[in-house]
């Protein structure tokens, strides 16, 4: 009953307030028409000056700057892509903690002490233009990926050797020897000296891929991870 009486009283008040509300509504509607017209004309002018009504106000700009500043401070990516070499399908990713130039990371052990900026590049291009190594088996166009496949093949061969008939072992051994001879130079090259992009002064060794290549070690040493993208046929 109390609620009913309250509602009756509220209804009575709303009915009394209704004319005032309608007056305010009508005044605002008329004012709104003028404002609409003014803003429409303003939007046309702004359009021809290359701006719009939706452009941010100075306060909005400050808010955006503050937000961007905060977001930049909060985000600390672990890896930042410095450079991608699409021809070689190499992506060189450096950690944000260490600032290393690409030239230093790639030519670290190869560049001589009195190295200048241009020399590594020259060395690279000179090495690329030199004659190709003589190998019996056909070489793939990009030698960078030869490490793992060869290694895997040999491992598989070794695994297979254990399960294949004994007479076969000799043949595989011979094949191994042949393949070894085709890829390994007469000079006994130590694995640690050879690295990807190690095109430097040992030109003959540039395309020789060592079996003991261990990408994990390189990551630890240089702070640089090098990943190889898929090669398009």
């Amino acid at each position, binding site marked *: 009953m109390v609620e009913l009486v309250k509602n009756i009283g509220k209804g009575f008040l709303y009915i009394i307030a209704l004319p005032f509300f309608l007056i305010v509504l009508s005044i605002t509607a008329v004012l*709104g028409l003028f404002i*609409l017209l003014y803003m429409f004309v303003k939007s046309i002018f702004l359009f021809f000056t290359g701006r719009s009504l939706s452009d941010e106000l100075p*306060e*909005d700009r400050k*808010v955006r700057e*503050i937000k961007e500043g905060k977001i930049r401070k909060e985000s600390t990516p672990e890896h930042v892509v410095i450079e991608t070499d699409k021809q070689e399908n190499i992506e060189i990713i450096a950690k944000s903690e260490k600032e290393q130039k690409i030239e230093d990371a790639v030519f670290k052990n190869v560049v001589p002490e009195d190295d200048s900026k241009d020399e590594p590049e020259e060395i690279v291009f000179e090495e690329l233009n030199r004659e190709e190594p003589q190998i019996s088996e056909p070489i793939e166009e990009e030698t960078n990926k030869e490490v793992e496949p060869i290694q895997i093949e040999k491992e598989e061969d070794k695994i297979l050797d254990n399960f294949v008939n004994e007479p076969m072992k000799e043949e595989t051994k011979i094949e191994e020897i042949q393949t070894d001879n085709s890829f390994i130079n007469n000079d006994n090259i130590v694995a640690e000296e050879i690295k990807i992009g190690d095109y430097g002064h040992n030109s003959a060794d540039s395309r020789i891929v060592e079996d003991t290549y261990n990408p994990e070690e390189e990551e630890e040493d240089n702070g640089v991870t090098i990943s190889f993208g898929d090669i398009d046929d």
Partner: protein
Amino acid sequence: MVISMINPILIKLTENDKRIIFVILALIILVLIIAAYIGFLITKIMKYQGKKINNYVTDVIVTGVITNEKDFKQYAKKKNWWLFYHQARIPALVVLIGVIFYIIASSITGYKDPFNKDTGFASLLFVWDFSVVFSVPEEGVGLLIRWPELVNTPHFTSEAWISYIFVPIILVGGIWYLVTVQAFIARQLQIMKLSQKIFNEQIERYVANQNVQNGTYSQNDYNAAEENMGDIINKNGSK
């Protein structure tokens, strides 16, 4: 019912008259209750419409770009007008199209009076003549009250085709525009409320929050702090 003008104190009420008075009173109460619920509905809708401005003014407060009431009101007013323009341009366009259509059609056909009951939109509506409700009897004394006469029943006329197009367009555009105006008024009220809440009640809120943190709160302080947690502004900048 006859009201005697000779002796106005003596009013003769028959049973029928009493029933009619009872029904009228019940109708008035019903109208008041309906008005209360309609008013409640309108205020609820306006509160909902007003809260939309919160999304546009929260960032400047939380980031500390605006720190006083005057700047806040100016900034919020600009945002409110921009929102109004954004919302009202479509119904304004609809009304403009209707008006242009009517001007062109009436200038070609010479059509006038789109609200006429014979050749206008009113031909589709029930129309009563209220001028015969109150009349003086032939005796010349007293007041005669009658039911209004039904003058028109809904029917289509080919002459009123222009009004059949023009009036609905105007109605839709007009009601839509009035709703946006109402939303504008609601947002303006919300801006006034927010400026009071944000800049003038901070001391009370701070005291309430401090008391809650210290553990020396009273029930009132606790309730105030609980309410404040739902507010837009927080000392730490979180919503």
